[in-house]
């Protein structure tokens, strides 16, 4: 506005942060690709020349070939859809319900304190171990994978939301109460929105936990899914196919990660990153 004065004489040093940021972004993408390429080349080379045992390490070209076969002759695509579907559903359910649980702790400190150790204990149960019980409780269908993805995420989401609740600006609550607000007003208008950054902060971790949960669910029993494919491949020692599964899961997780980054940006719209 007022700063747009005459152009300064040439040869001046002028700081330009946005250009610098852009340059870094561009270089980062180039660097990422370069590293990716380097890994691929090294991997391929090492296995070609026998520095790495290609039986166990497979090789990028083999993985692509086997992966393509799995797409054409196998059911890789529908497996992928199955696994990502269960993961996303479980993630959404776990995050929403977990956040709700965490937020509900705002209503009573007593209640939250009583519940905490039980949540921790439940979280620590290795789900794979309780397969027979889980089969009885949740069956072996698609829902059971969703339930496991849900179970993996719900407690982490609850803990995060509760951290948010504990860090609420008490003065905002006070302000609202002084305006004559009831507790449910405070909850809806202050507690929930001000906990959002905390909930958002665990999305990245939760999406990979949800994926892990789905995979465990498929290990327990499944007719479809990447986890089932990997398990099968491991069982019959088809390590190339194991690698296909691993690579697909890595890509899936990166895609989901980007999804959470986008979600984060969406939820944090109109807020500066928390200090």
């Amino acid at each position: 506005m007022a700063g747009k004065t005459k152009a300064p004489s040439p040869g001046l040093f002028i700081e330009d942060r946005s250009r610098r940021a852009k340059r870094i972004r561009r270089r980062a993408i180039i660097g990422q690709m370069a590293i990716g390429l380097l890994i691929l080349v090294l991997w391929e080379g090492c296995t070609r020349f026998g520095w790495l045992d290609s039986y166990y390490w497979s090789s990028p070209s083999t993985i692509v070939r086997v992966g393509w076969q799995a797409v054409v002759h196998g059911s890789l695509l529908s497996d992928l859809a199955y696994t990502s579907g269960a993961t996303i559903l479980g993630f959404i359910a776990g995050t929403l319900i977990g956040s709700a649980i965490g937020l509900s702790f705002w209503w009573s400190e007593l209640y939250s304190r009583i519940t905490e150790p039980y949540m921790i204990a439940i979280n620590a149960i290795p789900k794979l171990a309780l397969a027979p019980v889980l089969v009885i409780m949740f069956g072996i269908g698609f829902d059971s994978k969703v339930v496991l993805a849900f179970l993996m995420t719900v407690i982490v989401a609850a803990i995060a939301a509760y951290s948010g609740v504990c860090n609420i600006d008490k003065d905002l609550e006070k302000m609202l109460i002084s305006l004559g607000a009831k507790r449910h007003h405070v909850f809806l208008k202050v507690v929930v929105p001000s906990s959002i950054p905390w909930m958002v902060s665990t999305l990245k971790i939760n999406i990979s936990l949800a994926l892990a949960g789905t995979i465990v669910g498929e290990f327990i029993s499944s007719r479809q899914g990447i986890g089932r494919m990997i398990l099968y491949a491991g069982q019959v020692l088809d390590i190339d196919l194991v690698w296909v599964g691993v690579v697909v899961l890595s890509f899936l997780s990166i895609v989901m990660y980007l999804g959470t980054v986008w979600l984060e940006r969406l939820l944090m719209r109109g807020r500066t990153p928390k200090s």
Partner: protein
Amino acid sequence: MSELAINHCSKYFKKDAINFCAVQPITMHVESGQFISIIGPSGCGKSTLFNMIAGLERPSEGEITLSGMPITGETGHVGYMLQKDLLLPWRTILDNVIIALEIRGMSRKEARQRAIPMLQKYGLGGFERDHPDALSGGMRQRAGLIRTLLDDKQVILFDEPFGALDAQTRLQMQNWLLKIWNEFKKTVLFVTHDIDEAIYLSDEIYVFTKRPGRIKAKVQVDLARPRNETTMMEARFLQLKRELLLMLNEERPHPEFDGNEGDAHGG
């Protein structure tokens, strides 16, 4: 109209098993439409007194009435503004100022319609859809005051509302507040550490003793209204300032080196 009465209100806390007096019994009657300032050393219980009036804390003894109705321990009867603007960072300015209306159950749409002219009239036109982050400190306090005004309470408590602003913005805000007070005829209770500010704005100034707080003196500010920047150069202004400075100095425990007796402040 309404008169705010504080009858023998005190406040004790229990800390490490001993009783701790924050405010000694205070009795105060504020007539409707008056601008009252309260000054006193840090930690003397000014904020605690305000919390009691606003119903956020229960007095240990005594009673508070508004137009004769007891309001002790009840919230929602008076407006309250703090040094921190306390705008909700995730809401736009417009949605921030209507929050009291929302709580009362008005629809957002109606509340917004009522708020927009207010924002425009009082210097926030064009910022309705911005988030608080985008505004300067002075503008944020302005939004906070408009929120309080929209709540439409007869009595408004201000607890160092301009304490975090720089001196020039502060002066603008004082003038602006006087203008609004003049238009709305509210009863105002105003806590400040700035003696100039207290004199410039008030009809009456209560001086509190150091902790535990008690009313030490009540000073009438007999300066003509409307006041402006030249008021501050008047002899009577300077005389009042000298008086008040003297009184406050008496309440300062160690005039040279000690800060605020360990109360955390600032920043």
